[in-house]
């Protein structure tokens, strides 16, 4: 993407990630947390900011936050409290957001990421808990604020628990950033605390990026990049922005500190106006809430109940099943997929790589086409294992197995049943095959002579002839063996 630079320029990236928690009720009131729905149907005096209303903390949201903090190797605060972040915006019912400032629930963690780059340890500055805002619709223009005539506010989302994760500026490239978000997403998904769907807004990523000449101690002007709505966009946006800043640096036209909006279609970023003094949030401890001192026993029980994290799952899968690293990566993008695989692998009881291959090369494709996740397809893990065993036994060929898989996908029937129904069972009877092989040898004397003379690659031609005579149903391995035997020098 970028041409070789004439000098070495370093990129520095820090990420600010918001995770919407999948609790049943909101952060400070009992309204239901759900995606979409008729506007303003999940509000109450508290999340609507009516005069006189008061917040009460959702215990499960606290628990989930501590879970996330520990999964990111953070220290959990012994004393933590909520603070008010004061600013005016119509999607904020109280015109302050209850958040955390001085004593976040988690701090000082680290997450290691790997990829096509040297292993990177990314520091986690803080993990804190806050409430989400409502949603705005901007009417009268393109849908963006700048050319709107007026706006419409829906407070269904207002008050949803939100965990904010801020990284140290330890990330050095767009690739690393993408890998970080991917890994973080997998972790949070494994914890079961959020849907983490970027397209639904339950995972949001903002980035801060700057460049400087190698060797400089001062960081360049920090540019905030917003509106990256998928993991892919994170990569594209940061790649673009990095390129833009590098070019500016090289040309002497220094990048300025600003906020930029990523345009999905164009793949570029453009400046967003912001209010400088809006940063005077006047944080102070929220007097309507009391501080939290999570007990050691509570934290310990949360840790004990921690599910297997992706990093541990990956090493266990490597050790237990001997899978290729790339495949492990794919199979661990979600807990559900990993579980499915393991169930199939246990049921198979042979080299797990075979099962993995079938899932990755074939089954995923069928699922994607049908638009359903692996866990919802009609084939059970046990049934996939059955298919692989059927191929191993020689009853059907590998090629036929793909056809069988398609049948299983459509009907949910066992592999053996499909194979029988479609008459796919291979001819594996040596006696029967023997006569066909003899026929072919007789019909192709020149080829047969070549094989006798030692030209083994001609065997394939003869195998093909046998396959044609048997309408593809002969067991190719058996055929090859028979030919080799009969045409031994």
């Amino acid at each position, binding site marked *: 993407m970028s041409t070789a630079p004439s000098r070495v320029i370093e990129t520095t990236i820090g990420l600010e990630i918001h995770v919407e928690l999948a609790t049943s009720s909101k952060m400070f009131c009992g309204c239901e947390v759900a995606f979409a729905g008729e506007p303003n149907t999940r509000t109450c*005096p508290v999340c*609507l*900011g*009516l*005069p*006189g*209303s*008061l*917040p*009460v*903390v959702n215990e499960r949201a606290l628990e989930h936050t501590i879970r996330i903090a520990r999964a990111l190797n953070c220290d959990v605060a012994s004393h933590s409290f909520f603070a*008010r972040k*004061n600013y*005016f915006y*119509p999607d904020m*019912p*109280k*015109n*302050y957001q209850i958040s955390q400032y001085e004593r976040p629930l988690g701090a000082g963690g680290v997450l290691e990421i790997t990829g096509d780059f040297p292993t990177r340890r990314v520091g986690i500055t803080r993990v804190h808990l806050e409430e989400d805002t409502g949603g705005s619709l901007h009417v009268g223009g393109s849908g963006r604020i700048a050319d709107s005539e007026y*706006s419409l*506010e829906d407070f269904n989302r207002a008050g949803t628990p939100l965990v904010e994760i801020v990284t140290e500026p330890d990330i050095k490239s767009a690739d690393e950033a993408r890998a970080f978000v991917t890994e973080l997403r997998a972790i949070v998904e494994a914890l079961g605390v959020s849907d983490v769907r970027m397209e639904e807004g339950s995972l949001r990523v903002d980035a801060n990026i700057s460049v400087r000449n190698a060797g400089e101690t001062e960081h360049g002007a920090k540019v905030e990049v917003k509106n990256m709505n998928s993991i892919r966009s994170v990569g594209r946006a940061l790649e673009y922005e990095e390129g833009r800043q590098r070019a500016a640096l090289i040309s002497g036209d220094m990048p300025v500190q600003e906020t930029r909006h990523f345009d999905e279609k164009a793949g570029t970023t453009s400046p967003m106006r912001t209010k400088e003094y809006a940063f*005077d949030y*006047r944080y*102070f401890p929220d*007097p*309507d*809430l*009391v501080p939290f001192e999570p007990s050691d026993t509570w934290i310990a029980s949360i840790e004990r109940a921690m599910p297997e994290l992706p990093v541990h799952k990956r090493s266990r899968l490597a050790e237990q099943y001997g899978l290729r690293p790339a495949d492990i990566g794919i199979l661990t993008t979600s807990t559900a997929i990993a579980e499915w695989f393991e169930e199939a692998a246990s049921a198979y009881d042979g080299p797990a790589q075979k099962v993995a291959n079938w899932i990755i090369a074939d089954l995923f494709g069928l699922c994607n086409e049908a638009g359903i996740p692996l866990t919802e397809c009609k084939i059970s893990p046990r049934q996939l294992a059955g298919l692989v065993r059927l191929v191993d036994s020689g009853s059907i060929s590998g090629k036929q197995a793909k056809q069988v898989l398609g049948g299983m996908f459509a009907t949910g029937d066992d592999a053996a049943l499909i194979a029988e129904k479609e008459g796919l069972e291979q001819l594996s009877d040596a006696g029967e095959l023997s006569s066909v092989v003899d026929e072919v040898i007789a019909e192709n004397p020149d080829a047969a002579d070549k094989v006798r003379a030692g030209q083994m690659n001609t065997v394939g031609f003869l195998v093909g002839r046998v396959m044609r005579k048997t309408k593809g149903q002969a067991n190719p391995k058996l055929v090859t063996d028979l030919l080799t035997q009969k045409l031994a020098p």
Partner: protein
Amino acid sequence: MTAGSGPPSGDGLVWRTATELARLLASGELSSVELTGALIERSDAVDPGINAYLHRTDELALEAAGAADARRSRGEAASPFDGVPVAYKDIFVTRGVPTTCGSKILEGWVPPYDATVVERCHGAGLPMLGKTNLDQFAMGSSTENSGFFPSRNPWDTGRVPGGSSGGSAAAVAAGAVPWAWGTDTGGSVRQPGGLCGLVGAKPTYGRISRYGMIAFASSLDQASPLTRSVEDAAALMAIAAGHDPCDSTSIPSPAENYLDGIDGGIEGLRFGIIKEFTGEGSQPGVRARVDDAYTRLEKLGATLQEVSMPSFQHGIPAYYLIAPAEASSNLARFDGVRYGSRVAGDTNIVTMNSMTRDEGFGAEVKRRIMIGTYALSAGFYDAYYGKAQRVRTLIIQDLRRAYESVDLIVCPTSPTTAFKLGERTDDPLAMYLSDVYTVPFNLSGNPAVSVPCGLSSDDGLPVGLQIVAKTLDEKTMFRAAYAFEKDLGFAGSPEGRPRL
């Protein structure tokens, strides 16, 4: 000057305490409908002269009174006070009944829910007579900051009833209602109580739920009764007190029966007199009554000793930084978006917010929002708000130390008697300084009651004596106030009420 003429009262129904009325209802001598009717009549008669009410709910009250009578006739009284009407400062959110917080910015707002205090009183069977006037958003000491009109002191209608709960105080003092709810953030129930010859009792912070009580300063606000007797105050407070899961700052322990042992007397109780409250700046007539009160306490068997509170001199500055700071944040929600008034026009959100707030809020509210915003802003937080929160710690420490050698603290409620309307409106600072005796106990969270200690020799206007107990020791506070009240014989006497 006295208020307009009303029906001859004397020992009439309208001057009875809630406790007395409860007895009459229980014995069947009186029905709630009769009582409520009499109070409605009384309110009609006196309110034009005192402007206590912002909104009357006569029909709802009579309906509730009827229901109370029906329950009593079935022997199923909801509480000992079933059928005794009450009024609420218009800062308590009431479902289906307009609530303005005394401000034009909330004009027309009809809440979809009830404050917990209101809910508990409804549950005890108290019919609601109406919503009373206040300094808007509870910011003021005279009710002159109401967005609608000032209330007047029934003792002298050219004077203020105090504030911010002036409407409730005026209503009770004029016999329009037996008892009423106010809120006390810096003295807003004790001071009007003192100026109107009533009992004004603030509980320990967190004792009564703040849910549905429009917030001024969250760490200082408490619902507080205004009544004609100590017994009534103890009873009304007990009805509302106790843990509320809707308020995170609500104290978990269950409420107590404050009437229990209230007549135990004060023999042997140790009272502390604050050395730093020299009485400088106090009206001589007020000082005289307070000194008399100290003498009376000793006569009743209590001992008095001096306690020193060096931090108290910083009480006003700390209060006038903390309260506005919290208020500036609490009042940010009034922006013309979801409820209340809006300055319309073809404009943008910022202009709409700003103009709505500038027009809807009164001058004092704007002043405090500005102070509070400034005190919290970048670069000033540590010097102002941060310092004030530390002064608060010192005040709490001084009190804790004092309570090692005394059981109660006693001092005046207010440096002066009720001042004239318009006398202090041009000098906000002078207005603030009159809170000097009350604010330290909001900062510390201690329970405190103002009980009448007579009429000032200067001007014949009521003087209040303040008794402050340890946190959660409302019982001792009420016991002391009760003993004093009984011995003084002011409450319930003809001298103890204005000539209306």
